[in-house]
């Protein structure tokens, strides 16, 4: 095994983990506070990517495009919350799953009509489209480092927001006991809308940052949505700290697993068996981990206090 390669894979894993965290942070709050299963969270991620594509195209600048797309996704999130989701809070989970599944179909088709069915590429600006030598002999793309930096900054911002501000206090209180917060006279509806908008903006940001690395396409949201669910379930629903750690664990296991599993299997199994088992096993790793965690700790690794 090449140690330099492993190091690069670990960085990639952290980067994927931070992207997942951006999605998971919003989703776990929406889950924890509103008790809402939101399958359409991946659609907001997709919309973020498409907004960034369009705004970047109009303004000829990636950075301005992202800066415009961010409030656009926030606004979209608020509209979705007010129009469709608000009525779902006191419904059971099955209703929520179905209604938000309907939203996915709607958004996918909407995107297909507006932007067309083909995948789009969001080009990087020149100053990010370079690579840095992080260790002697290992160049690493600047953009991926930037993603890691932004992810860490957002994590820090969220920590400060949740742990140090009044609104964070309400969010934490909401995650532990919604009814009590409402009974104490807090405008819970407004709090819900704010949390949902925040979650939407974070999901959109993840989409924008993933856009230059992946292709902007219909269905991009569903793929990452399932991984995000794995993250919040492992982390414990409603816990941002849990989401952060679980996102990094999943990001690392997925990325590093894919690169070292074939070598590991080669040591244990005959060549032919190893090469057939490796791709399937590495895609399954995260789900195996989730099944293990839930079998041992049914409420996740870090269930929020009082829940």
């Amino acid at each position: 095994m090449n140690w330099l390669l492993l190091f690069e894979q670990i960085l990639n894993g952290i980067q994927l983990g931070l992207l997942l965290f951006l999605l998971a942070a919003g989703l776990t709050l929406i889950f924890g506070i509103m008790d809402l299963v939101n399958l359409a969270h991946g659609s907001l991620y997709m919309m973020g990517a498409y907004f960034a594509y369009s705004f970047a195209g109009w303004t000829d600048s990636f950075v301005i495009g992202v800066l415009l797309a961010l409030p656009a996704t926030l606004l979209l999130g608020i509209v979705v919350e007010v129009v469709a989701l608000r009525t779902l809070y006191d419904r059971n989970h099955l209703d929520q799953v179905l209604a938000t599944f309907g939203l996915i179909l709607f958004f996918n088709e909407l995107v297909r009509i507006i932007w067309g069915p083909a995948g789009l590429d969001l080009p990087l600006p020149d100053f990010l489209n370079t690579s840095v030598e992080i260790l002697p002999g290992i160049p690493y793309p600047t953009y991926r480092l930037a993603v890691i930096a932004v992810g860490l900054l957002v994590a820090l911002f969220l920590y400060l927001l949740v742990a140090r501000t009044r609104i964070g206090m309400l969010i934490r209180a909401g995650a532990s006991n919604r009814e009590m917060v409402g009974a104490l006279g807090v405008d819970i509806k407004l709090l819900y809308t704010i949390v949902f908008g925040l979650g939407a903006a974070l999901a959109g940001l993840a989409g924008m940052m993933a856009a230059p690395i992946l292709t902007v396409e219909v269905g991009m949201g569903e793929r990452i949505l399932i991984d995000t669910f794995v993250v919040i379930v492992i982390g414990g629903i409603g816990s941002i700290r849990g989401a952060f750690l679980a996102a990094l664990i999943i990001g690392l296991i997925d990325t590093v697993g894919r690169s070292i599993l074939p070598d590991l299997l080669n040591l244990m199994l005959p060549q032919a068996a190893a090469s057939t088992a490796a791709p399937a096993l590495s895609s399954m790793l995260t789900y195996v981990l989730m099944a293990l965690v839930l079998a041992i700790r049914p409420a996740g690794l870090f269930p929020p206090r009082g829940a």
Partner: protein
Amino acid sequence: MTLSVRSVTVILVLLGLALVPPIASWVDQGYYTVLFARMLIMSIAAIALNLILGFGGMVSFGHAAFLGVGGYVAGIFIFHYFEDGAEWMGNGYVQLAATIVASALVALFIGAICLRTRGVYFIMITLAFGQMLFFVAVGLEIYGGDDGLSLYTRSEFPGLFDLNDRTTLYYVSYGTMLACLLVSWRLINSRFGMVLRGARLNDRRMKAIGFPTYPYRLVAFVISGVMTGIAGFLLANQTDFVSPSMMHWTKSGDLIIIVVLGGMGTLFGPLFGTIAYLLLEDILPSITESWQLFFGPMLILVVLFARGGIDSLLGPRSRPDD
């Protein structure tokens, strides 16, 4: 004796379904036999899901995986029969037995772990297991991996019937669907079904009065898995093709939609739901290409305003249990 609206509807629907192949060949539209055969097969899966979702309150978001298990057993057996000349693998009885054993074992394994969790966690962990099996199928490279596997011939049951004939396949699916309806009906009205429904309404109370609900729920999960596996077996025969896409998580979502659309926790709801869903899926694209733009919001409206699904349109249920 007067028949209720529901009884009349059910009789008409069952009769109508029985008459599809002769009518289709009379008007020379063989396509309808294919469409309705698919409908029957999907309704078997929906009936199976309804057993645990509607009556047991278990929202399994990975049920399409069992369609895949059944489908792949058929596909793999026929593949070896065709490629390696393994005579016994071409035998329909062996294939069906293998389907039942395989889906029962998978359901037992998945159910044993998932049923330890509740609510959202149950939804998520069944989803995760569904994805796991999806990736297993993607990884089966000798059986086509991502691209799937074509069935060069269909299952033959020597002395009984041969699914290569379109009409035979139709009536076998029809009979299987009726059998599954019968099994559900007997199950939910038995002591077993009472415990299952009790556990959905109040699990803690059921335990308090002395029923260990876990084994009951697990058995229901396994029965449902096996039924869905058989549906998958028939589906593979009907489409002559198996691929990972038949166990994609959106297929599990479709199954849930079908059950809710038809009326969950009702005997005939899944059948109505499947017919409505597949007809919509067949008709809407011919009206507008972007039919999902309307289908999605329609789904939301059904969830919000038509709680009981199609079944509730046929008048109040004789014995509401919630």
